[in-house]
């Protein structure tokens, strides 16, 4: 077991501040966005299970009788094979019982939980999902109230108040226990650094400087070296929703067709000229970074960590670029809940207790690059990759230009259709070369249909009007 230390490196120690900043941003959005704030699934990961080790005395007590526990943890997070294997073989290894960890697509995941609730009988003991998924379940009232578990756990864990507030969905109940947090960042090979534009600061790179960097890299190396996760299972739509749009327009839905939005898409058209065209097959950017197909990439931290861990001397992590409106970034929060139909609610609580232990959270961080959902300090012995990402995440959130943009909120099962609007815009504007203004105008109607169907109010960075969000 790894003990948390008070003498962590400066970058790593900032995690507490980071978590607080993230939590503050979320609370702000929750307050402004109504009580049904809901983060859409993306990628958080969860893992774990209870460890019975001696330095967690209470763990022994609760799990002692659970040697024959047989639980099912269904999660929309940590689905990629490597992450899921890390959860099963490392994070859950010390849990006193058997945990079947099942990664599930968002759609079937929601269907399964709701169907089990409707049937009045279920097979899932614990669910791991993003805030947005829990919003859907809270509205359907298919989860157990975990207020007492949260209180119990808070005795030796520091859940940020703002996150706890989110878990209530405007009620007195607690629908999930904060589990993991993550965001997105950039990674470059150290060889690429020498081609940085004059005067550019890697820690505060602007979109224009990134474009120039990509151009010079292609010119000097003879091949496009910038990469984006534009494949089928890539998260490029999050780049639009949480980075490009807010950074250029200061909004998202309400500025969807604005001149600033056209400017943002034009930037992407320009940078795409110097982007490896094989990006449309990339799901995780760590592979093309490691294989040398690209030298600079943006992606989710959990999808970059492989490169930083495998060859820490060859890669550096740095914050997402700064746009005209600021350094936009998207924090991601996930939690653990118990369905009302859980076959073993007591075992489920033990599993959540285990997964949120500081040492297990630290293990999760090392294995999957998902940061803890508690505000506890990070361990001081984080190795290169995770430590580097922790510093970047801190820099991103501590920046005076920081512009946190939340995952889509309140969309329920319209999340996939919402992402499709951005994916289709990308295909039309970038891959097919259509005029950005025209494409945005026609996609705006699709976007409005999705928001109407979900009845979703605007969320940060759009101003909330209390009514269904109107595309602008």
């Amino acid at each position, binding site marked *: 077991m790894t003990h948390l230390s008070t003498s962590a490196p400066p970058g790593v120690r900032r995690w507490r501040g980071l978590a607080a900043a993230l939590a503050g941003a979320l609370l702000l959005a929750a307050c402004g966005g109504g009580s049904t704030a809901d983060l859409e699934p993306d990628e958080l990961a969860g893992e774990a299970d209870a460890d019975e080790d001696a330095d967690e005395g209470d763990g022994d007590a609760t799990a002692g009788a659970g040697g024959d526990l047989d639980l099912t943890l269904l999660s929309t997070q940590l689905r990629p094979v490597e992450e899921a294997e890390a959860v099963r073989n490392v994070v859950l290894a010390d849990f006193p019982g058997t945990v079947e960890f099942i990664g599930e697509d968002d759609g079937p995941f929601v269907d399964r939980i709701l169907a089990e609730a409707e049937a009045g009988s279920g097979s899932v003991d614990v669910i791991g999902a993003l805030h947005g998924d829990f919003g859907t379940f809270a509205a359907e009232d298919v989860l157990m109230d975990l207020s007492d578990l949260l209180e119990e756990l808070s005795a030796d864990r520091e859940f940020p108040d703002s996150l706890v507030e989110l878990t209530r969905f405007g009620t007195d109940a607690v629908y999930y226990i904060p589990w993991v947090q993550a965001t997105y960042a950039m990674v470059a090979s150290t060889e690429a650094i020498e081609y940085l534009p004059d005067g550019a600061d890697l820690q505060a790179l602007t979109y224009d400087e990134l474009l120039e960097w990509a151009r010079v890299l292609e010119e000097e190396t003879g091949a496009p070296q910038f990469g984006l996760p*534009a494949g*089928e299972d890539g998260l490029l739509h999050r780049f639009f929703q949480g980075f490009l749009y807010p950074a250029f327009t200061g909004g998202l839905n309400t500025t969807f067709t604005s001149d600033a939005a056209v400017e943002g898409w034009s930037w992407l058209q320009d940078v795409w000229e110097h982007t490896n065209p*094989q990006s449309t097959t990339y799901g995780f950017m760590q592979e093309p970074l490691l294989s040398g197909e690209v030298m600079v990439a943006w992606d989710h931290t959990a999808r970059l960590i492989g490169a930083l861990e495998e060859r820490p001397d060859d890669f550096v992590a740095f914050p997402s670029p700064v746009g005209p409106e600021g350094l936009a970034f998207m924090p991601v929060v996930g939690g653990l809940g118990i369905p009302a139909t859980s076959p073993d609610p007591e075992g489920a609580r033990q599993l959540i207790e285990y997964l949120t232990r500081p040492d297990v959270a630290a293990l999760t961080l090392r294995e999957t690059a998902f940061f803890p959902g508690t505000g506890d300090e990070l361990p001081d012995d984080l190795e290169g990759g995770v430590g580097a990402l922790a510093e970047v995440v801190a820099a991103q959130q501590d920046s005076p230009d920081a512009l946190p943009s939340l995952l889509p909120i309140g969309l329920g*099962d319209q999340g996939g259709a919402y992402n499709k609007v951005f994916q289709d815009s990308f295909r039309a504007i970038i891959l097919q070369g259509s005029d950005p203004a025209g494409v945005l105008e026609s996609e705006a109607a699709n976007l409005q249909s999705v928001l109407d169907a979900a009845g979703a109010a605007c969320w940060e960075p759009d101003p909330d009007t209390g009514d269904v969000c109107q595309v602008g």
Partner: protein
Amino acid sequence: MAATDTPDRTRRLGHLGLAPYVLLLPSLVFLAVFFARPMVDAFTLAFEDPSGGFGLEPIRQMMADSRFGEALRTTLILLVAIVPVQFVLAMSMALVINAKLKGQSVWLYIYAIPLAVSELAAGIIWLSIFTQRGWLNSWLIQTGLLEQPFDFLGYQNRGWLIAAIVLAEAWRATSIIMIILVAGLQSIPSDYLEAAEIYGANLWKRIRYVILPMLRPSLQVALILRTVLALQVFAIVIALAGASMTVLSAEAYKWQVTYRGPNVAAAYAGLILLLSSSAAALFLWLLPASPRSGRGALNRAARPEPEREEVSR
């Protein structure tokens, strides 16, 4: 011969009474529950308005979708490209195996290896070949044929992308066609081929006038199967093309799972079924099992006289 067989067969069947129908019942029930019912449900879903009544909204939504045209076009292109390639390959492989060469069974095992590989695994294998740092580019650079890696899988190199998918799919699914053709070839009585040889027919003439006509039932089955499979191509496209290319089955999946639009997904599924059925009907019409009576593949195999006459000229 047929004239004398028929009364015997009828008498024998008469003794069986209802037994054949009883024996068929389980499979009929299975088909009704697990095939017909879901199919009817899918069609119902495809014609369901948001209000729940009958309507064409899902069809309209499917056709208005920005990816529909590309998905349909790509699926048809792949169909046209994959089927002929696989048939030429499968026929060649089947003839090699049927030639009773030394080590015949070794060839069969080698050819059958891809049967054990799933579609997605096949896609990943070929991805490792065609990607920029893959085997093909490495080899081309090592041999000096290329200076920089070529992007075979880039969205802008659509021709190469389709070629890569066709190759991968041909590698993966040709064996199943080959197995069907080998079975067909081995059911051809050797005396027909020997007779053709005695009459002076060379290899091409034996293929043209004996083998192919007698293989028609197997060809029909293989063509229908191959076409249906080509319309269902999914994982290989996802693995090799990523977001660069889409096909009907991929859109059906995404509408069902990702976009949560079961009605539109059902519309896509209905379209795939319609195309499959049309292709099957086309092959049944183009390749009647018996050119004279149109009844039964086995009858055709038992009456090769016209071909013998042709060969003897």
